[in-house]
């Protein structure tokens, strides 16, 4: 399979990726019965500039809520989110978010979808289309500019979503289980291409997943979360060499060690979450 072709280097004016700090984040929701439920509790995390950080935890532990607080669509009940020491409030132009579900606009063509970001940010029609074409080429979708999302496969729609986010040149890139719903092979290919994009973009990345292999293959650091309310249980530095090739890194001897090490921590939480979900019916 083709991989993403590196595009023009970042413009010299691009801000460096910021240091991301989460300070005692708390999120409480009122559940349907009106009772307050803590989803995220005293969450502390520091992500150095340009690091690829993966949060991993059992299903439903509140990890997606952490991401939506960082991107500004959910307001934390308590605590602060800082980018280079300055409070990050609301949706920030430096932030990009790739959704778990399909969030491309079904009524826009591939070109219009990818060009949406620059258009919203005030770029001209021509310039936006030109940049969009470039990004469509970089994610390997040349020739599909005038297609509508329903005419594309799940993997191709994911590429559109990536291009749509990347075209804005995010300095903080948030990924919420971006490849869930894709088959195993497509997942691997997309992970590899994501790595390529990240290497050319040099953004600070926070990604959420519940796939440990994916986490180790991609990350500089894997953060294991507790089984709801989400807080940081333990952090693991992934000292695998870069640049990595996703298909091969799994056979690195260190990969198996890390997998075992992290799994021993993660499995407890997975079991707690599982016991809860079966107890709840």
């Amino acid at each position, binding site marked *: 399979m083709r991989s993403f072709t590196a595009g023009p280097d970042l413009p010299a004016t691009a801000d460096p990726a910021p240091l991301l700090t989460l300070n005692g984040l708390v999120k409480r929701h009122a559940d349907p019965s009106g009772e307050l439920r803590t989803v995220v509790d005293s969450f502390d995390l520091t992500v150095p500039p340009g690091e690829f950080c993966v949060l991993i935890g059992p299903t439903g532990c509140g990890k997606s809520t952490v991401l939506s607080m960082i991107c500004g669509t959910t307001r934390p009940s308590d605590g602060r989110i800082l980018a280079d020491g300055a409070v990050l409030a609301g949706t920030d132009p430096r932030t990009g978010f790739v959704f778990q579900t399909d969030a*491309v606009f079904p*009524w826009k063509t591939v070109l219009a979808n990818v060009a949406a970001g620059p258009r919203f940010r005030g770029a001209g029609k021509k310039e936006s289309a030109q940049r969009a074409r470039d990004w469509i080429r970089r994610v390997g979708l040349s020739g599909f500019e005038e297609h509508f*999302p329903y005419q594309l496969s799940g993997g191709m729609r994911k590429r559109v979503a990536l291009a749509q986010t990347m075209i804005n040149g995010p300095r903080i890139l948030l990924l919420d289980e971006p490849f869930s719903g894709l088959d195993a092979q497509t997942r691997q290919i997309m992970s590899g291409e994501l790595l390529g994009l990240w290497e050319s973009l040099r953004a600070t990345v926070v990604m959420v997943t519940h796939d440990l292999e994916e986490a180790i293959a991609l990350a500089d650091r894997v953060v294991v979360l507790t089984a709801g309310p989400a807080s940081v249980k333990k952090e693991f530095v992934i000292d695998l060499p870069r640049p990595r090739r996703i298909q091969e890194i799994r056979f690195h001897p260190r990969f198996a060690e890390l997998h075992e090490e992290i799994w021993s921590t993660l499995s407890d939480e997975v079991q707690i979450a599982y016991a809860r979900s079966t107890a709840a019916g």
Partner: protein
Amino acid sequence: MPVPQQQAEITAPAPVPGPPQRGRSRSGENTPRWVVLTLQIGLLVVLLGSWQVLADTKTIDTFFFGSPTGTWDQLISWIQHGTPPGPLQDQIWVTFQEALIGFVIGVALGVFCGVLLARNALLARVFKVYIGVMNSVPRIVLGSVFVIWFGLGLKSKVALVVVLVFFSVFFNAFQGARDVDRGLESNARILGASRTEVMLHVVLPSTFTWIIASLRIAFGLAITGAVVGELIGATQGLGLLIYEAQGNFDPDGVYAALIITTVLALVAEGLITLLERRALRWRPQHLNLGSEP
């Protein structure tokens, strides 16, 4: 009234180009199209023919029930010699104009109010009871009020059409604007969209898929509204032709006016279907032809 019923039932399903059949196969599903068409025309001929025979043999009284040839003659006479209130095309144009103006205003108001209430919980709660009550009023009766308010001309008919169209569009727009995918909205905001842009690029397109389904029904209502408005009181229009024919105990005149009205509605429906195809080309084809929930 036997004829208009038959006319409507026979012509209504025909223009729909059979949607690709999905699911279980029923008997007759594989019958070629020309056979179906032949059967449809045959049925029409049999029904009209037997009616004509009944009329010719004086089994039924043509004074009350009219006859197909009588209706045809009436149509030809209107086309050649004009109608009592004026040339036929003028009557058609008057009715069409009333329906179209009312339709456009009604749709615009319906979409505006539907989206506004869907996006504003307080307004929705305040207006909920009023909308419910207004929806329960037999709205066609408002035509009488509008004649008093606006007189016998265009305005009273347009007002009636607006009222009829508004509600049919409003509920769809309301539902559609509430149904907007939150993820798409968040995505647009994160990509940098302002509130207006979220409205234009996410909420309205999403609502539109709901509204468009109601437009065809709404245009049918618009024609109904215009004709009924003219029945209540008018100086021009197809409804007036019906009113006068009824007054003269001329069933053929009523049928003839109804046929023209039906053709008008069908043409308009065809135009809306074209618009729908164009506007919804981002959706898989088989979904376009089916009706919305």
